[in-house]
């Protein structure tokens, strides 16, 4: 996993609440058995006029002009500003894979759905929760000013606006540590292999029916 320390980038405002994972990456693209290549299909139904199919070359597909991602001013964006309950719906990790593949490394919203939030961290994406009023203010500023950029510092837990305003965000210590160092948490858990084995030995005595072969 790619580490996340600092990021400065163009911001896209996606002013909708309850953006679900079906919207982020429609199901037909879930048939891929890879982790990459989803970027061109991110928000497929909102982005294109036609129906997207896996493997399609997207460069010539007709685009919906009114969708933010299609506006030239947001080209190359790496930070997504979103509405509340972003990422609700299914557990598909294809959603963060698609966001990452498109180029987003950070998503800022008033709230996230639990599984999506968790999935972001496993893929080097930083989801930041800021108060709804603050997100609204950032959206307005972003829409008003072309080339609007934010600076994120994970170590300091801050978002800095172009005018120099510094916003603080909360993040849990373990997740921060893993993200800062790009750590694979399977490796970390396996450091406790002896404790897992000891647990299993004890539990087999207490509740042997849990260890019958499936």
């Amino acid at each position, binding site marked *: 996993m790619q580490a996340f320390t600092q990021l400065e980038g163009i911001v896209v405002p996606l002013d*909708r*609440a*309850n953006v*679900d994972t*079906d*919207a982020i990456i*429609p*199901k*037909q693209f*879930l*048939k*891929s*058995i*890879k*982790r990459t290549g989803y970027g061109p299909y991110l928000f497929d*139904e909102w982005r294109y006029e036609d*129906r997207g199919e*896996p*493997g399609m070359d997207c460069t010539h597909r007709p685009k919906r002009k009114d969708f933010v991602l299609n506006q030239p001013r947001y080209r190359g964006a790496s930070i997504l500003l979103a*509405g*509340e*309950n972003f990422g*609700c*719906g*299914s*557990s*598909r*990790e294809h959603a963060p894979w698609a966001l990452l593949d498109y180029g987003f490394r950070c998503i800022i919203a008033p*709230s996230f*759905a*639990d*599984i999506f939030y*968790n*999935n972001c961290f*496993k893929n080097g994406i930083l989801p930041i929760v800021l108060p709804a009023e603050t997100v609204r203010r950032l959206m307005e500023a972003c829409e008003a000013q072309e080339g609007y950029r934010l600076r994120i510092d994970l170590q300091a837990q801050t978002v800095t606006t172009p005018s120099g305003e510094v916003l603080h965000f909360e993040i*849990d*210590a*373990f997740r921060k*540590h893993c993200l800062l160092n790009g750590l*694979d*948490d*399977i490796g970390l*858990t*396996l450091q*406790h*292999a002896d*404790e*897992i084995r000891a*647990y*299993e030995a004890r*539990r087999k005595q*207490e*509740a*042997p*029916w*849990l*260890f*019958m*072969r*499936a």
Partner: protein
Amino acid sequence: MAKTLFDKVWDQHVVRENDDGSTLLYIDRHLVHEVTSPQAFEGLRLAGRKPWRPAAAVATPDHNVPTVDRSRGIADPVSRQQVEALDANCREFGILEFGMQDERQGIVHVVGPEQGLTLPGMTVVCGDSHTSTHGAFGAIAMGIGTSEVEHVLATQCLIQKKPKLMRITIDGPLPLGVTGKDMALFIIGRIGTAGGTGHAIEFAGEAVRALSMEGRMSLCNMAIEAGARCGMVAVDEVTLDYVRNRPFAPKGELWDAAERAWRALYSDPDAHFDRELRFDAAEIEPQVSWGTSPEMVVPVTGRVPAPEEAANEVQAASWRRALEYMDLKPHTPITEIQVDKVFIGSCTNGRIEDLRAAAHVVRGRHVAENVRLAMAVPGSGLVKRQAEAEGLDKVFIEAGFEWREPGCSMCLAMNADRLEPGERCASTSNRNFEGRQGMGGRTHLVSPAMAAAAAIAGHFVDVRNWQEEQ
């Protein structure tokens, strides 16, 4: 100290508490399907890791499988590749799989309980959000992402923060014609799709106790639609009767010991919840969703709401968007909404009891002329066999329904079963998101009896009126 049901199960699964307040939680059962697992198996291979306890996992393909004749396999090469990848991974890593030609194949959340692979007091995970279904057995059952699927395969554990606890109590007897599905939609309508975020929900109260295991599974299935980490129901006689004699359930002395342990799986009377909600069952009517989120739901006796009635501007904006997408006008009575397709199935409502309820409504009647396609899709091969033994397939077919092979089917339209742009569907599934059942498709979530009645009438009807007649 008094403990909640959740606390009891959680505490039994703590391997270690990490310094940062997270917990290494042991996972008893890992359910696997073809869509969210290939990248996890690939990850294991790349890291040279082996599954920690392959015997704890069980797999079945469900999302991509065709629901028509399977003897010639899957026509779509991309879908086929995914299902074949699951077969190959299970073979390589020694995981039990109910493959596409196995009669036990089906939607993973139907198969687990049906086989007795889901047991009370377990921790159950699956790379699928509707894993919450298994909480109906007094289990902690959570949907996880693919990275976590890999983590569980490699370590048999998950790193978790203990969620907050919420109890939703439904008092009083459930009115006639009202199901677990209606209860779920009603609750989501009240608390919203983010109402349960960060929480594990325990469903309690007389009306919940009165539900069959099937009804409880429908209810817990949709806990995720309320944003919750999981849903749970305490163990009682209904639970034990369902589990007893299932193929993978413990037998003999082992059963006796298990039963003793399971009987303790309820919340102690003075246990603490972070949030408590109570509703009166008498308030619950058959529900119909009108919008593009499960919280956009009204009773069948109601009307499509107007954005002016919304609680705030954010909600009004999403209602306007939903009305446009759904092509509905505010104040339209629900019973005036016509449907083009009807789908009965999914992990919410693809069990035998659901098919019985729908068959009961369509028996001796015929699908309306304006309905282009009505399909009944059993949740598993064994549900299908049982339904056929009861003659339900004939009831459906005679009424003009298509009777299909088991799988997720039009719940998410990853196979060939889908809505065309603009088509309107009465569906027993759990999500009415834009494009969920096909690009431009319009989904109304209802119970199986309500979907069946809509198929017959050609528009939504209050199924309670029909049930009184019978």
